[in-house]
């Protein structure tokens, strides 16, 4: 009888024995695992430096076995710039929420993209400030009820939500910008491919690479994980359409 081989295991980039502290059903766990698998597969773990952010993602360094620094709220891509400029041979990435990336950190995020810094940014978009209890954030959908939009987001009081991947794609320094979803197994596979592509683009030094991940917050949305994924499909994906918004390597292939 042939020897058994293990085909599924925890990635080396996940800290041994660590337990995610995310709420049950939250997509953060899936997203972190995908990033870890990609680091493993590309052999980047022991060369990588993570810049963690503020929000539910703050303790990412407790789950990932990579060198990490925790940035003040919104400043992750400024710190990532500093890390990369000081140590250009390292793989540098951020893992941020939509509030960190596109509200308090919008200037740092877009300017990092405009400079074409060779870093990778992963942004979890769950349409709310999760850690502080579900307030209105930059990606909260029109009509969405949060603790600070009790009658739903209306334009008069709150203005419009931001389409992050599209904005990042407009920056000339961006090499890759994609939006993916974790609502189904096929989409999770696509998400992993996008994350992998982003890191490969950094390895080639082609510019800023970005993946926005549509994600759930069952706790603050007051939904079961299944209902939450239905919301991603029915309410988020029509507005935040998954897809690749910029890929300079694909453009090159067309030519």
């Amino acid at each position, binding site marked *: 009888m042939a020897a058994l081989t293990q085909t599924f295991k925890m990635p080396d980039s996940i*800290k041994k024995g660590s337990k995610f502290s995310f709420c049950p059903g939250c997509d953060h766990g899936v997203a972190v695992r995908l990033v870890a698998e990609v680091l493993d597969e590309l052999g980047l*773990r*022991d*060369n*990588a*430096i993570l*810049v*963690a952010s503020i929000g539910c993602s*703050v*303790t990412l*360094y407790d789950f*990932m*076995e*990579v*060198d*990490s*620094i*925790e*940035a*003040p709220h919104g*400043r992750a891509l*400024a*710190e*990532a*710039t*500093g*890390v*990369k*400029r*000081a*140590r250009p041979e*390292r*793989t540098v990435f951020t893992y941020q929420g939509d509030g960190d990336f596109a509200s308090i950190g919008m*200037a*740092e995020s877009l*300017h990092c993209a405009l*400079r074409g810094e060779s870093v990778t940014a992963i942004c979890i978009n769950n349409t709310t400030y999760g850690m502080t209890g579900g307030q209105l954030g930059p990606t909260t959908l029109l009509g969405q009820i949060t603790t600070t939009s009790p009658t739903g987001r209306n334009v008069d009081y709150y203005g419009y939500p931001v389409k992050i991947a599209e904005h990042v794609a407009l920056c000339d320094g961006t090499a890759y910008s994609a939006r993916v979803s974790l609502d189904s197994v096929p989409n999770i596979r696509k998400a992993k491919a996008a994350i992998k592509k982003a890191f490969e683009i950094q390895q080639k030094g082609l510019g800023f690479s970005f993946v926005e991940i549509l994600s759930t917050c069952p706790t603050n949305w007051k939904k079961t994980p299944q209902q939450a994924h239905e919301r991603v499909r029915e309410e988020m994906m029509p507005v935040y359409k998954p897809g690749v918004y910029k890929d300079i390597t694909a453009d090159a292939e067309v030519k």
Partner: protein
Amino acid sequence: MTECLTTTDNKVLTKGNYAIANAAVMAGCECYFGYPITPQSEIGEFMSGKMQELKRAYVSAESELAAINMVIGACSTGAKAMTSSSSCAVALMQEALSYAASDELPVVLISVMRGGPGLGNIYPSQGDYNQATIGGGNGDYKLIVLAPSTVQECVDLTYKAFYLAHKYKNPTIMLADGLLGQMMEPVEFKEYPYPEIDNSSWALTGAKNRPARVIRSYAPSADNQCEFLKKLHAKYKLIEENETDWEEINTEDADIILVSFGSPARNAKSAMKECRKLGIKVGLLRPITLFPFPSKRISELADTAKKFISVEINMGQMIRDIKLAVNGKAPVELLNRPVGNPPSVEEIVARIKKESEVL
């Protein structure tokens, strides 16, 4: 003036801002991140050319918030990195300085003070003594603060800022003012005189053949944070014991001691000498480190001196530290100019004469 100054055998007549920038290059600064603000913009201008020429990192940051956080990022890898700014823009950096103190990172900030509060104006000022020594960030932290009073000291203390920042893993500010930034004096750029500090035990380099490292300030448990703060403050105590620095002239028999830092200390020194010629027993104590402040020495001098006069370009900020050190043993008077050039020698002499009549 933006031509290469990097190494010279002779003295060069150099503007304070260029002297600082060139000294940073000579100190081995690997990364400069900055955003322009008068009266220190020449530092970034010099660095933009020089760092690129030397194939070191230079970024025109989108804001001071970004600039100081880029410094944090670079320092987390053990690199020598810096930014430079002024008053209202240093105000924007306070959050990051608090993080850097907690992260124990060797951030170097050159702060060239201008008038405040708010936008204020671009005249020289010492209105940010409190901002530097007490800080505007949250939590119990201290920054090392160095105060030059000549252009040569701008060079020497820039070297020292990099050394102390790395030696103690503590953010360090060199606090100059607009007058020093724009002033030209002959300076010597000697080789960086300090030993290189080995950062390999903590720097982020990628977790190769070792457990991953984390540089963080988030401490979810109260117990951890108590331990951490005790450790941090033990370090500050060590810095006080080892690094407190000041210049002292004619204090031994002095009835009146002038205390002044930065550019006004120049006029205080001249005034002190004039008064000595008149037979008035005056001395000068010039703090070179503002944190650690020479409190112990001032306390000793307060046993014999009859009066202290704090000479500052602000509404009286350092005077609080002098009073704390003197601790009621002698009166502490203030001779200040709210903003602008330092009080003139004549003004200081007149005040000394007046104060000496009522000892």
